[in-house]
């Protein structure tokens, strides 16, 4: 099922990041990122915390303003000073770690309000699209509930439905399952898996290696603000060619072992 050869054959890439830099004060979080994501491609971005992967994702829809470099989405240069960023963001769905549902609105209203205010859709059309997308994430029965009465997994699925209701060309996921209890992760990943199969272009920052291995077309490993490794999941996760990637993966799989390795490494450096 894994579409190992990336769809770089198709004309322009859906997301194109060129020499992207971002610093917060003296802290250089991104130090020259180049990345292309083709239409319908699913790319998982992995890496240790502080590696800049979330910042990269947030630069794609300009929630963070890059210090230098360019980002193109669907051929539009997002980073161009004259671009209507609100118009660009309508085409990019985003899902956050903390869900960020609007707590003062019901589930349906969470889906209809952005459609009506931003896309100027009529009441009925918005309601129809909302119902469609709630069904897509399997939460039709929660249409009238308020976010506070939902589990974390349900909230995240509503958040996905809210983004989908806007009809985006691209979906960005910022650690969508990191804030969830382990038993709730599966439902959210199932929704994302289905979305990937439907051909949505997806950029996913995640720690879920099994999801990356199974669903992603490509896995990008970041560390220290640069892309260290970029390739098929079987290669990057299964047989990494860089020491840093290996180290990260071993730490993820067995934190206790990684500590031992750290000590050994430091000892070697000391010599």
């Amino acid at each position, binding site marked *: 099922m894994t579409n190992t050869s990336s769809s770089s054959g198709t004309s322009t890439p859906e997301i194109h990041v060129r020499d992207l830099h971002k610093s917060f004060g003296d802290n250089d979080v991104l130090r020259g990122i180049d990345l292309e994501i083709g239409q319908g491609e699913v790319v998982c971005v992995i890496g240790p915390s502080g590696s800049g992967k979330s910042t990269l994702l947030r630069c794609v*829809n300009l*929630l963070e303003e890059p210090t230098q470099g360019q980002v193109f989405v669907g051929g539009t240069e997002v980073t161009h000073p004259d671009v209507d960023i*609100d*118009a660009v*963001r*309508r085409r*990019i*769905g*985003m899902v*956050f770690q*903390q869900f*960020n*549902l*609007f*707590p*003062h609105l019901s589930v349906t209203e969470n889906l209809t*309000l*952005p459609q009506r*205010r*931003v*896309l100027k859709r009529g009441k009925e059309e918005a309601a129809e699209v909302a119902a469609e997308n709630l069904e897509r994430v399997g939460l039709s029965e929660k249409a009238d509930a308020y976010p*506070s009465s939902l589990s974390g997994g349900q909230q995240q699925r509503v*958040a996905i439905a*809210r*983004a989908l209701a*806007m009809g985006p060309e691209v979906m960005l996921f910022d650690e969508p399952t990191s804030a969830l209890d382990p038993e709730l992760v599966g439902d959210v990943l199932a929704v994302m898996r289905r979305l990937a199969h439907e051909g949505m272009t997806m950029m996913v920052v995640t720690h879920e290696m099994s999801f990356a291995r199974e669903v992603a077309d490509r896995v990008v490993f970041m560390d220290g603000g640069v892309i260290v490794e970029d390739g098929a999941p079987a290669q990057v996760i299964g047989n990494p060619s860089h020491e840093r990637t290996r180290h990260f993966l071993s730490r993820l799989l067995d934190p206790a072992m990684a500590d031992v390795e750290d000590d050994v490494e430091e000892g070697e450096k000391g010599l």
Partner: protein
Amino acid sequence: MSDADATLQPRKSGLTRRQKRALSRGAQYVVFVAAVIAFAVAADWGRLKNQFAQWDLVKQMFPDVITLALKNTVLYTMSGFVVGLVLGLVIALMRLSPVGPYRWLAGIYIEIFRGLPALLIFVFVGVAVPLAFPGTEIPGGTYGKVALALGLVSAAYMAETIRAGIQAVPKGQMEAARSLGFSHARAMVSIIIPQAFRIVIPPLTNELVLLFKDSSLVLFLGVTLEERELTKFGRDLASQTANSTPILVAGLCYLLVTVPLGFVVRRLEAKAGEATK
């Protein structure tokens, strides 16, 4: 070593902690009862009753004290509250603006109007505004002046409250709205401000109670008979009859509104506390 020994030694007084607590509580009751008795003995109840509880005077005040005085008090308060709320929201948004001069202006306004007695502002509205802008009438006559004066006073407090409320809305809410394509202004109106108002309803209700009492300052503007509110009404009648009963009745009318409002505030606060758990 010696420290540890000391803690095991019985206290000098020989009282346990529980005994001490009982003793202290007992002392407080004694003081309380003594104070009540002293007050009851010292006060001249006959004269107090004459001065404050003339039943036929009470009857004479009705229904005007409700249909005119209380009605006007409520009207003044509500109109001042609405002006203050709108002005307060604008100042709060100015305070949060990325444009420096807006922030400074809002800051100056808040410092000035929070620091001035409400009475001075009433005098200012009654005297200075007509002087400064000759020929212009504040629309609505006395009602307009009161709404303006109370609005100016309360806007400073409400601006600070609303600003805190807006800042209490998690940052992710604005990010989610922006990522859906909302402009900053539209996100503020549809997403952030509605949530901020939920947070600030208890403190704003408190402000309403304060305004309710401040509305008594209307008497410094000079009002017609029809425009009198509770305090003015009570005072006028008290001086006419050389008896203070009307003042007591007017005071009770204030409590008629402020006590239930205070109750509502506590309920709202308890509810808000639960919601944030």
